[in-house]
């Protein structure tokens, strides 16, 4: 009885010794260095662009959709400087070669997430472009959140929805700002909850906690339409491949 009491009383320090031993214990450290890597076994991950998302657009498409227009240089967030080509008479112009590279990486991630049956949510707090984003989400069988963000949808989901809730696997922010030029709360909440993010970051946005930022214009309807079209195409490519592979594996099973 005494031992039991002591154990419960000392549970906190016991936990501390456990965590200290986790660092020092050679078997656990060894396990850490030899963590399995999925890319060694998965042929999809060893290919740099399995879904061929690079051919979805050209730099000229970006230019024609007015992706290169940033805000005026007074509103520049200094962390966006590496993605900006220059300032034309006070207006910032994005380097579209860089935008294309970041966008292709983001599209690749979106396609892979869709292939693995991940939940994807589109975000945009711009009323003018909200409808096209919601339509895109419906068309590719995913979700959109374009309304007021009630705090705690991610961070307190169990309470808000009354049950344990599966959070999305990828959040795509077509603008990382909310309607009053502050960062969307879901950007921070995604980082808190360990959800990967793709974000279109304009010249006045902060790209830091976005996992896969894409520098570009997030205000023009033409630019938003282009992003919607591209992400929809990438997600549908991932889903189509998934269906294809599922059919293949189910037809292979009887022979095994």
């Amino acid at each position, binding site marked *: 009885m005494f031992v039991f009491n002591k154990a419960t009383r000392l549970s906190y320090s016991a936990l501390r010794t456990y965590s200290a031993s*986790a660092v020092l214990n050679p078997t656990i450290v060894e396990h850490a260095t030899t963590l399995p890597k*999925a890319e060694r076994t998965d042929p999809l991950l060893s290919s740099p662009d399995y879904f061929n998302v690079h051919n979805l657009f050209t730099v000229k498409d970006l230019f024609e959709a007015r992706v290169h227009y940033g805000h005026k240089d007074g509103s520049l967030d200094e962390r966006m400087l590496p993605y900006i*080509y220059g300032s034309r008479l006070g207006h910032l112009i994005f380097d579209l070669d860089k935008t294309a590279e970041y966008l292709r990486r983001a599209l690749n*991630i979106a396609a*892979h997430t869709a292939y693995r049956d991940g939940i994807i949510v589109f975000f945009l707090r711009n009323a003018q472009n909200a409808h096209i984003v919601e339509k895109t989400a419906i068309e590719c069988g995913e979700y959109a959140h374009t309304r007021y963000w009630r705090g705690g949808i991610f961070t307190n989901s169990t309470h808000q929805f009354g049950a344990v809730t599966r959070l999305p696997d990828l959040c795509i922010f077509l603008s990382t700002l909310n309607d009053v030029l502050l960062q969307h709360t879901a950007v921070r909440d995604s980082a808190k909850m360990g959800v990967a993010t793709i974000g279109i970051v304009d010249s006045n946005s902060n790209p830091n906690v976005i996992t896969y930022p894409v520098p570009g214009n997030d205000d023009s309807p033409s630019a938003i339409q282009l992003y919607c079209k591209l992400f929809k195409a990438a997600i549908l490519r991932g889903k189509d491949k998934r269906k294809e592979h599922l059919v293949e594996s189910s037809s292979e099973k009887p022979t095994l």
Partner: protein
Amino acid sequence: MARSRLEKIGTIYSRTKGLIQSGALQWEDRPLWYDLYEAFPPLEEPRFDRPAPNITLKKIFYEEDKIRALLHNRNKHIGTVNMFNNQSHTLTKRFIESYKKLDEQYVGTASEDVLYNETIELLQHERNKPDDDHISLAKSFKEAQQSGNPNIGIKVGDIFKN
């Protein structure tokens, strides 16, 4: 599921990796993006405290901006430009092209003022030049009037006959 909510420390990947290494999170329970992140890591680490790089913002200027400035300094009211129109060139562009051509003809000997005046004259001459292939309603009406009564060969009464 075990989770670190300190979004200002490290990245989502480093925090999740730490949980897996310490055994708080099973390898099988890793998030869906974990393998994707390892296979396709972002170009920059998505850290909250990544400092702003020390790059100076360069200004974009073109050689012909001098000519553009010359036109716009002397003419404050040039009118609006339809930026969706890709069919025709703007006045400024036409001015720059003519100015450059004239400058080449003079082999750089003419002064700015002379070139400016001559280019303006040239553009005005082009504007007043009668346009042969241009078809307008007023023009075709005038032509029809000048040619006298048109002989179409249709009687109104015939239209209602079956």
